[in-house]
């Protein structure tokens, strides 16, 4: 106690200690191990040895460029769709929900109470060839007579959008809920129509929520493999599927580790570009 009294400046660091230890043990150590693995060579039968095998990276990029690209494409589209779906929804809840606000929020989060796998399996039924969605789409000509939704990119993107919607909706809700309704009155008082008030006041003030929501959706979506596996075919497979099968089925650790690092680096690069575009001020609120 007297030590802490004499060294008050240390207190914040001591408070940080458990967190730092956690990060070190459960993030940095595995990350280092993964990096080590990604530079190994050999085979499952003969065992892997560390050889600074940087060619693992080059091989991974050239072999799986298609899956990498698809991951970012699907994740990007799903993020935009999730934003487009949840913004009006959450806007309505925040400004018109009244005393039902919390109920609506629980409804948005409710799917998370069901296991990810089961939720995605449910979409198998929803999008089934004889199911109501396909029939309805066929009736209005959105899907050809003998066409299907399952086993297409559409199904995978729909699944990702659905599964990550709460991660978009919640931060958006928080930022919209915080907006003082009197600011919108002030905008209208200053000759802004409802539309202008939205574009000039509501939208910029909800930007932190948009940024947080897109990050929380895009990052895990880019590494997702469940949706492509259950709702798609190998022709829709994403980089997550490749990593998963290399790690667990082919036991090709170096390639899997190298792909993981490539994915991480690409996501980081995408983040940096994004931060540049929206401005770091918005990222930090």
């Amino acid at each position, binding site marked *: 106690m007297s030590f802490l009294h004499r060294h008050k400046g240390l207190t914040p660091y001591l408070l940080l200690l458990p967190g730092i230890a956690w990060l070190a043990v459960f993030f940095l150590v595995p990350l280092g191990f993964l990096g080590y693995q990604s530079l190994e060579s050999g085979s499952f039968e003969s065992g892997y040895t560390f050889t600074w095998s940087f060619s693992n990276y080059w091989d991974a990029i050239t072999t799986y460029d298609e899956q990498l690209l698809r991951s970012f494409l699907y994740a990007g589209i799903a993020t935009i769709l999730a934003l487009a779906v949840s913004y009006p929804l959450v806007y309505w809840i925040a400004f018109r929900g009244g005393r039902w606000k919390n109920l609506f929020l629980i409804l948005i989060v409710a799917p998370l109470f069901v296991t990810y796998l089961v939720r995605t399996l449910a979409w198998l039924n929803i999008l089934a060839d004889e199911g109501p969605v396909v029939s309805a789409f066929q009736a209005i000509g959105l899907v050809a007579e003998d066409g299907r939704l399952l086993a297409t990119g559409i199904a995978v993107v729909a699944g990702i959008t659905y599964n990550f919607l709460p991660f978009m909706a919640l931060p958006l809700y928080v930022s919209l809920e915080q907006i*003082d309704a009197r600011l919108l009155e002030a905008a209208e008082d200053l*000759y802004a129509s409802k539309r202008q008030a939205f574009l000039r006041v509501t939208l910029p003030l909800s930007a932190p929520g948009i940024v947080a929501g897109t990050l929380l959706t895009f990052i895990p979506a880019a590494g997702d493999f469940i949706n492509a596996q259950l709702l798609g075919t190998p022709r829709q497979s994403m980089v997550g599927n490749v990593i998963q099968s290399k790690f667990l089925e082919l036991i090709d650790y170096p390639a899997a580790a190298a792909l993981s690092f490539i994915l991480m680096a690409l996501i980081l690069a995408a983040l940096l570009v994004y931060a540049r575009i929206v401005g770091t001020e918005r990222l930090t609120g």
Partner: protein
Amino acid sequence: MSESMTSPDVRLEEVVKEFGEMRAVDGISLEIPRGSFFALLGPSGCGKTTTLRMIGGFEEATSGRIFLGDRDVVGLPPYKRDVNTVFQSYALFPHMTIADNVAFGLQRKGIARAEVNTRVAEILELVDLAGRESRKPRQLSGGQQQRVALARAIVCNPRVLLLDEPLGALDLKLRKQMQLELKRIQHEIGITFVHVTHDQEEAMTMADTIAVMNGGRIEQLGTPADLYERPQSAFVAGFLGKSNLLAGTITGEGLVRLVDGSELRASTNGTRGPVSIGVRPEKISLSNGGVNRLAGKVKESAYIGVATEVVVTTSVGELTVFHQNVEAGGVAPAPGSQVTLSWAPEATFVVDRGDPGDRGEEHVV
């Protein structure tokens, strides 16, 4: 320019606003002449903000008509009304700089960028905020934010400026300073101001005309001197300044009999029956020079600088007297001494013997 020069800037006709069962505004009619500084004064909850919001277009009147100039604006959204508001909470846009906040209205009106810049600079000069253009609202003090809110509204040069307790969040010293500042600005730009406040001193300092509101209605409308010298209800007499109210009955033209049988003179203007008569504490002298007289005994006296406040017990109740400290040291009578209170009939007003109201400071007997 079909509009006649004499039409008032704001006209309300029997305006009513109900929130469910609650009647927040209960039939208000008034006219606010062009260029005037008009105050809506009343206790909290009497419907001032609601009235202002109906003029601004944020609340739809349940019934009645509202005119801005010659135009009936009922049903018109705020952005189509030629009025601007200084909100109680300022409602500055937190994501915009001061300059962008002030430019907002002009830009929405489609005014050319060069002119917007000039006018923003001019108005920031007027409210003494030049040099703060690129700050964000949260980087300014409360008083500065208040002036940004004012600048943002008046830069649009509206027909009417609505101010909802604009000084309510400021400390006393700054509030006094801003009262004079607002009056100067209003004088300089000549826009009609409608100022909502619950502070009678603020209303009297600033406004040319005051409407005293109570329970969703206008109790009395007039100049500050009118309201102070000739209040028409016990509520107004109590809400503006201090007054002594005594129960009595009008027995003849200009004659009121008090409960102890003594008679006082007042201008009764044809009223009859049970009334209260009132006199302001500073109008009473502790000598027997006036026409209206009451004998009493000093209960207590307190030296308050500009005057000595003397409470006198009489046979009709307690009266408060502000005895001017003309001589150095203040020679107020000591507690227990017998005094005669006297005042002029012109300083005596007659009001209905009604509910004195919740903020009243008068002594009703």
